[in-house]
């Protein structure tokens, strides 16, 4: 008897066959959308933040070439996710990003210099997580999924209206932690949203070697987590999906798994050589689905983006890039005493000894 009721429940958890979208590749509204189109003010904000975010990303890549950053993982081409998801959050919500998500951080309002501290090499983290409600950028893959579930569950235990959004890559969905996090979230009905940015690759490893399910969003059903597949280069759709998921979570409806189909336009990082494992044709096809072009065309066709606004946004992006250059071109001096300052709540005697030894060496 239980069995007969399963398919319907299962179906309600499964993603659609085709990714949800609101805008076509060329920026026209899709016919009969499932999702609700965001208002004009949101669309304009998505556009503005995406242009600024892309300029930031280009600037960070350039600074890396000049040796100002140890390494930079670019999110070029993924701006619909980086910006759309963050704008869908409310101030009281939390974001758990990865190393790839610097654009998401600046969109959230983390100052650029603080965002890039990790990659610049001054410290492991440059911002105050509590100030921005942004967890530390996560490098050990998928470990942030569990932190997000825990934080969200604590919020619900405390009666706080807080949702946690965790970002992970396609590759990271293969790690055990992702599965444990989905299961915990499902069992606890935790107010958490998982956004998988499926950008086609985990460094060199393509989807075909990573996953045999029809989609990554299909992973939700086994954990009782409703799942959504969305066009990850459609900023309006990513925004709408994440906003709906945040709303559901906030209303006690539990977690959602979102898979956004997008593409990593640059190499994994500046240290990677993507020509070893993918064709230029493939990249070119995705450039044709550019998320920034898409929203620009849409807004222009709607008469919302005139030359003056376009110029103003471009100018803002340039000014932001200039400010990024300025902070990053200033040499940071990190006090070596900091090596010992944050290991324990109270400095231990053996660390004090070691700190004294280093101070003497440097004197």
């Amino acid at each position, binding site marked *: 008897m239980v069995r007969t009721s399963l398919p319907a429940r299962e179906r309600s958890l499964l993603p659609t066959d085709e990714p949800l979208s609101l805008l076509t590749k060329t920026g026209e509204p899709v016919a009969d959308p499932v999702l609700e189109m965001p208002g004009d003010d949101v669309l304009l904000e998505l556009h503005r933040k995406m242009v600024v975010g892309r300029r930031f990303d280009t600037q960070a890549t350039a600074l890396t070439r000049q040796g100002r950053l*140890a*390494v930079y993982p670019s999110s070029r081409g993924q701006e619909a996710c980086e910006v759309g998801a963050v704008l869908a959050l409310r101030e009281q919500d939390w974001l758990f990003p990865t190393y790839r998500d610097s654009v998401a951080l600046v969109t959230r309002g983390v100052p650029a210099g603080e965002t890039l501290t*990790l*990659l*610049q*090499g*001054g*410290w*492991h983290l440059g911002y105050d997580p509590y100030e921005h409600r942004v967890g530390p950028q996560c*490098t*050990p*893959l998928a470990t942030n999924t569990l932190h997000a579930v825990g934080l969200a569950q604590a919020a619900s235990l405390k009666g706080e209206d807080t949702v946690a959004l965790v970002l992970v890559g396609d*590759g*990271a969905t*293969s*790690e*055990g*932690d992702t599965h444990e996090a989905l299961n915990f979230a499902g069992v606890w009905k935790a107010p958490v949203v998982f956004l998988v940015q499926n950008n086609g690759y*985990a*460094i*060199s*490893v393509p989807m075909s*070697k*990573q*996953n045999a399910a029809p989609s990554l969003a299909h992973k939700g059903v086994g954990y009782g987590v409703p799942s959504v597949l969305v066009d990850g280069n459609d900023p309006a759709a990513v925004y709408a999906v994440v906003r709906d998921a945040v709303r559901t979570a906030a209303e006690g409806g539990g977690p959602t798994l979102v898979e956004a189909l997008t593409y990593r336009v640059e190499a994994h990082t500046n*240290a*990677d050589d993507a020509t*070893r*494992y993918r064709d230029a044709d493939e990249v070119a096809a995705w450039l044709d689905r550019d998320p920034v072009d898409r929203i620009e065309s849409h807004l222009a066709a709607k008469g919302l983006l005139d030359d003056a606004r376009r110029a103003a946004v471009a100018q803002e992006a340039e000014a932001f890039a200039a400010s990024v250059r300025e902070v990053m071109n200033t040499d*940071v001096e*990190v006090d*070596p005493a*900091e*090596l*010992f300052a944050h*290991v324990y709540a109270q400095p231990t005697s*053996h*660390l004090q000894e*070691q700190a004294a030894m*280093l101070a003497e*060496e*440097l004197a």
Partner: protein
Amino acid sequence: MSALSMSGALNRALADALEADDRVLVFGEDVGPLGGVFRITDGLAARFGDRRVFDTPLAESGIVGTAIGMAMNGMRPVVEMQFDAFAYPAFEQITSHLAKMRNRTRGKVEVPVVIRIPYGGGIGGVEHHCDSSEAYYTHTSGLRVVTPGTPQDAYDLLRDAIDSPDPVIFLEPKRRYWSKGEVTPGADRVGFDRAVVRRPGRDVTLIAYGPMVATALETAEAATEEGWDVEVVDLRSLSPFDDETVCASVRRTGRAVVVHEASGFGGYGAEVVARVTERCFHHLHAPVLRVTGFDIPYPPPKLEEHHLPGVDRILDAIGRLQWDDEVVGAGRGA
């Protein structure tokens, strides 16, 4: 004989092992077409095909766990962990299964798996890319733990590791991947469990391994200016430990310093000091000292130079070996 970088020597060892034995498989993250992020497996997938050299889903526990299963069924897996700290998701498979399988099954099941792990710092890497995690493994009985300090040893030890009936944690000092040396594949090997004297000297024994071997040799050169004739012992095999070679050296010199990048507290050096002290006490003119990383999480790139043991810190330690209490007939000038 030809000059090869350590990475080239490792690549050659993998190729020769794949060539020599069909049971050898190479797998992990990005080891296929990309050739690994450090290019250690460069060209192997093209040469041996994707049934022998292949990319796996991104899951370290999965990689080690399936390697154990493959080894149980007659294969000889050589798997790669992309960086030191990214082996931690596999910790349970390594410590509870890989290390214990022989013992649990009273010797009936053998798991000849090699886990290659680039480790250590000194390359300006961001957090989680620079850990020296050797002590976690050396503390685990049933694992062999080896680490090369030269390109020739990279070749020899990796071939020995793949031939070994025991599971091996093969730690690759990533900051030395690009350093070159003469490599003769197929030369007589020193022996898997053996330490070697890299540089003979009469006054003090510097005990080092992996990335610190080059630093110890550099220190030995610098020490000549201070009038110290330094012997450098390269441990090669951290577990098992070659007491014979190490103690023979310390008994000759009467003084010893152990060097490693990892934090000192509870670190591998403590084991070395204990063993040497227990066995060579009456030959020692001074306590055996350690020069190690501080007892802190690995620092960010801009501070790592302060953390890593370097020539000056090692020279300081040598200087603290109670030279004024010189016992006639031993050590310097003897």
